[in-house]
């Protein structure tokens, strides 16, 4: 388990991290969310000792993270980059070896990953000869080459086409299924909701919401009702007691209401009339939780 505990870091006037804490469990995936400039990259860098923290500790399985621990970590920085003129096979072997692999193991792993990513016949090509998408694949292989126990990925989905997104999701899922702890940052909240069991939402350097996605939804003080009906009156609905917001997309009304009392009580007050074609009741989506957390 990776635990970030009360991390603080100030750059001049900017408080990049302000007692930021969260944990990443083995075998699970955590989505690390936050608006731009919230401190995501600084927090992820601190796992690799790339930031000298003013306060706080980063521990892996209860022990402070040192060079020996980092050998077992895989990192994909926000700023992608490898050696453009180095042949990709050699490059992956080198990156395996700097994480403590033997040359033989690293060579075998590089071949396996390049094969799996469909680059088996490009081993001898320098990186710069590859297309942008293929360079991204090599970058992913670089983070995975040494079979890390912890994967830290800064915006891994940005710049990927839908096929790339699919490949990336599959690989991350299978890494977590094999027992690795996975944490990645993203702005694509639907995908995070889809992939991750856990989330941490950071705002102005502080984790403002965190934990299991299901639990967070259950604990949310709001209900969401989606309803399609004839002659729904947005004005009337939004004036009702305990209703926080009403959105109408032309077909359906999405009603967010504060929890309290009985659900049937709320439904009767909505007074939906006779012609209801669709009615769902759910917890808020992750993006509603996110907006709530960041606005609050």
């Amino acid at each position, binding site marked *: 388990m990776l635990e970030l505990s009360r991390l603080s870091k100030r*750059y*001049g006037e900017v408080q990049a991290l302000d007692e930021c804490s969260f944990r990443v469990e083995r075998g699970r995936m955590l989505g690390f969310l936050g608006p731009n400039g919230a401190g995501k990259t600084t927090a992820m*860098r601190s796992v*690799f000792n*790339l930031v*000298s923290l003013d306060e706080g500790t980063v521990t892996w399985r209860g022990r402070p993270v040192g*060079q*020996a621990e*980092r*050998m077992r*970590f895989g*990192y994909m*920085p926000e*700023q*992608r*980059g*490898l*050696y*453009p*003129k*180095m042949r990709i096979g050699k490059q992956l072997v*080198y*990156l395996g*070896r*700097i*994480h*403590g692999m033997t040359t033989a193991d690293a060579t075998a792993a590089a071949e396996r990953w390049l094969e799996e990513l469909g680059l088996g016949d490009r081993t001898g090509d320098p990186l710069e000869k590859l297309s942008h998408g293929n360079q991204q694949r090599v970058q992913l292989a*670089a983070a995975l080459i040494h079979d890390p126990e912890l994967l830290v990925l800064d915006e891994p989905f940005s710049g990927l086409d839908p096929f790339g997104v699919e490949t990336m999701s599959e690989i991350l899922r299978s890494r977590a299924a094999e027992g690795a702890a996975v944490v990645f940052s993203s702005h694509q909240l639907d995908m995070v909701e889809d992939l991750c069991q856990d989330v941490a939402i950071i705002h102005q350097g502080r984790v403002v919401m965190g934990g299991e996605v299901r639990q967070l939804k259950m604990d949310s003080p709001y209900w969401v009702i989606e309803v399609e009906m004839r002659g729904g009156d947005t004005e009337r609905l939004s004036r009702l007691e305990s209703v926080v917001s009403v959105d109408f997309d032309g077909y359906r009304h999405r009603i967010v209401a504060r929890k309290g009392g009985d659900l049937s009580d709320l439904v009767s007050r909505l007074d939906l009339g006779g012609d209801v074609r669709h009615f769902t009741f759910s917890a808020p989506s992750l993006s509603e939780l996110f907006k709530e957390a960041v606005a609050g």
Partner: protein
Amino acid sequence: MTSWQAIRLVMGREIRERSRSGAFIVSVAITLLLVAAVLFLPLIFADDDVRYEVGVVGDGSQVVIDAAVALANPPGREVRTTIEVVAFATREAAEAAADAEEVDGVLMDGREIVVRGAGGEAGGALESLLQRGARSVQIESLVASGAGEVVDILTSQPLEVRSLSGADAEENSERSVIAFGGLMLLYMAVLLYGSLILSGVTEEKTNRVVEVLLAAFEPWQLLAGKILGIGLLGLCQFVGTVVIALVGINLTGVIDLPEFPVDSILVLVLWFILGYSLFAVMFGAAGALVSRAEDAQTVVAPISLVAVAGFFIAIQAVSNPTSTLSVVTTFIPPTAPFVAPVRFAFQAIPLWQMAVSVALMILTVVLMTRLAGRVYLGGLLRFGSRVGIREAFRTAEL
């Protein structure tokens, strides 16, 4: 992974990737071509053995020619001069032969020289040679002694040379060869390999691979591996070139190599390593401060300036090894590697000054490596504009 393993990995990659890059292969080829040119061009333009054909008429010419040949070939001279004698019966026949360029000149009765025209270096050289021969015959007849002695007098250096510094003149010149050679080597290595380190560091920052590397390595391990790798590669190139040059010199005999004093060479090597390390660390830190190769010149200028200053102070020290400037700069780490070996070569540095200077230097290298590690981490993760040194420090307060 131990630090040494990490450093070795970085070193290995630097050496492997750099040695197969086009730029490196071209630079090796150019160096070898230069060495070859230095060694073989003098051979091509070297004087061949000189051979004259001289017509003679009458008696008394042969003694003059014998004396001239003896004067032209003192013992130890490699280029041999020979004069072939062609006897003519009459003046007219001899002059006709000279006019037709069948002979280079004509000697009449050992008293008169006839050459074709006034010009021509060969004609002039032959004329002066025969003049000297004739002069020696005259001296010989005056003192009525053997020709061999006269030749000895005319080709020897009768005044003995003695140096006041105690060391004999020959050793002094060897020491100055070492001092100058070492100075040039260090100066070239600092600027050449310094800029390689600079561009290597900037390159890793520009293509953003550095964050992946720093996630596994400590910054100082990355910097040390880079400096050692490039240094080792440069050293191999240097040693290889020197070995090839020495072999070439032995084969061709173009240059007389003096015997170098061992202590001077050891001191030179020590200072070479110290000087290279200090400048390499400074260049590495400077490289971390810029994101683009274009910005590199601005941060490098002060470092290059220090190297240039060290070089000129050391040149001054060659003629003035105990001047105040030479002594003071011995204790200033960036100039010490240039000045100290020169002063040592001329035996103008007390042992205590040498010891203090080396100690200061080692201390500075260690301190600079730590400082550079900080600047390195702080600078490397800031992309975009040039990072100020203070800002880099603040970013990575370790």
